[in-house]
């Protein structure tokens, strides 16, 4: 299975705007180190979830993969070709094949456009339709594939006339109309009602079945990631702490942060008195990163090495990687 997306050591640092005086007087260059070196592959038809809390860098990674934010270091390889060397034309072609679904269905559609124009926009931008008839036909098909049936009923409405779930389906229709290979879904259901979420997630999985679309699914909801993804990557402060098969991460994770996350994950059952690893404090800001392992200040199992050295991502068993000094190189006998 050839890889659709290969992220190699991605680093995204943002410069901070400070006052004029501070800029001159202070020698230190302050940056928000949103993503600190992430490597990941997504195969054809694979759904990989990036799970993390705020400050983990998951959204930034999603945008970097689609070339929507400038990268500081590292390489994104899409369908075997690096994004670095692409010229304007090639980048435009890339955009046809790699799309994004945004978190906020209330803001990600232009409120002044009718649905027809919103979904048809990719066709217009890439000059892929030549007649009005053709445009309407393709938009109708895309809408119906996204579950809005019959398509023609929706064409001339405005976004504010549709419900949240319907709007998200319109967004999906706009993303699939060009037959992409890869979609980045940034918290696509977190702003939707619970009963609507399942419909949208089912739709995404159906599209994977029918068209072989690969997904990078970004979420803070570990249980959602577990249900729909093949692989889960747990992120903390811009680095992957653990990555592996969804079942393994939920049921037999190794990293202390993963443990904590899975223990506090809400489940729909009575769970008073459940054993929960509640970490103290909150995720520190990505400007002043802790030394050594980023997680060490909050880690219940931290020891001396954790403060000095940053652990590498080690493969502890097939396709299961952990970045923690508790699992150093050479411990791969765990199965």
């Amino acid at each position, binding site marked *: 299975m050839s890889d659709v997306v290969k992220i190699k050591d991605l680093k995204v640092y943002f410069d901070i705007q400070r006052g004029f005086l501070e800029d001159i007087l202070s020698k230190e260059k302050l940056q928000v180190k949103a993503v600190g070196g992430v490597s990941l592959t997504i195969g054809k038809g694979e759904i990989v979830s990036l799970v993390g809390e705020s400050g983990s860098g998951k959204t930034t990674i999603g945008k970097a993969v689609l070339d929507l934010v400038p990268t500081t270091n590292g390489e994104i390889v899409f369908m075997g070709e690096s994004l670095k060397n692409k010229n304007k034309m090639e980048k435009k072609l890339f955009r046809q094949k790699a799309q994004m679904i*945004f978190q906020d269905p209330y803001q990600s559609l*232009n409120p002044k456009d*009718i649905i027809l124009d919103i979904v048809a*926009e990719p066709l217009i*931008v890439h000059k892929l339709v030549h007649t009005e008839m053709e445009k309407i036909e393709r938009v109708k098909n895309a809408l119906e594939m996204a579950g809005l049936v019959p398509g023609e009923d929706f064409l*001339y409405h405005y976004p504010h*006339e549709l419900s949240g779930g319907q709007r998200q389906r319109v*967004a999906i229709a*706009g993303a699939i109309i060009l037959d992409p290979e890869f979609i980045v879904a940034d918290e696509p259901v977190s702003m939707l009602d619970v009963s609507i979420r399942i419909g949208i997630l089912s739709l995404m999985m159906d599209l994977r079945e029918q068209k072989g679309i690969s997904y990078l699914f970004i979420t803070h909801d570990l249980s959602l990631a577990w249900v729909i993804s093949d692989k889960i990557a747990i992120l903390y402060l811009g680095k992957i702490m653990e990555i592996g098969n969804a079942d393994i991460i939920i049921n037999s994770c190794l990293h202390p942060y993963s443990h904590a996350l899975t223990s506090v994950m809400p489940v729909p059952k009575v769970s008073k008195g459940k054993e929960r690893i509640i970490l103290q404090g909150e995720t520190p800001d990505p400007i002043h990163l802790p030394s050594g392992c980023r997680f060490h200040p909050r880690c219940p199992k931290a020891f001396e090495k954790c403060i000095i050295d940053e652990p590498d991502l080690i493969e502890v068993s097939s396709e299961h990687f952990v970045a923690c000094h508790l699992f150093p190189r050479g411990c791969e006998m765990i199965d």
Partner: protein
Amino acid sequence: MKDMKSKTKRPKLKKFLVSLRNSKMGTMGSVILVFFLLLAIIGPIIYPFNPQVFGTGREILNSPSMHHLLGTDDMGRDVLGNLIAGSRISLLVGIMATLISMIIGTVLGILAGYYNKRIGSLIMQFTDFFLVIPWLPLMLVLAVILGTSIWNIILVIGLTGWAGTARVVRAQTLSVKERPFIERAVAIGSSGRHIMVKHILPNVFPLVFANTILVSAVAILSETTLSFLGLGDPTQPSWGMMLHYAFESGAASIGAYWFFIPPGLAVVLVVLGFTFLGYAFDEILNPKLKGR
């Protein structure tokens, strides 16, 4: 299921007109402006008195009578006739100048907002120059250089009035640019030009429109001022020119109120009309302002 009946493009204009009618200011403003518009367009046809006809010596500065409803001016010309003809000029100048201002201001504002690093800074510095310079002296200088034909007046007012609009449009562009649907447009592969025209402009347009109304008021006032100061086109009987002659001929000291009050009142009413309409648009666009 939300009722999704088939729809063809239906008029948003109707909804807009209804909300306009509901606002007191909007109605008043519209009424005033429509009145003057009609006056300007069909007035000269209904009232065919030729305003250029000079009167004899006896007819100078006559008070209102059956023959001349608003009296005569310092050349014996019919004041009412001049007023009606003047409406055409004043409104024409106002609207044309506004158009120029708005186009320059909107284009520069959107460009400055979208490319808001180098290019934006440059454009904004240029804009600030125009904002800071006192407009009257600037206009006077330009009027003297370019000459005082009606088209030059329009140009002068248009070229000096765009800076405020540019600032406002830039601010709005910056805000619109951050909204997720713009990011989506980038992700789809749209070019900067496509985004600015298809996404930013329509979302900035309501603000531009409201701003236009207010700028029109200023433009008309500017024309009146220029003409009053003697820099207007002497061949065109705008209200400003009427005031100019009224002042020059000493009509005020004589007490020939019929000469200077009508044009003055007309300017005030038109500006008021635009201002009311501008407020009404503001309210419609920002429903939170209702019930101020």
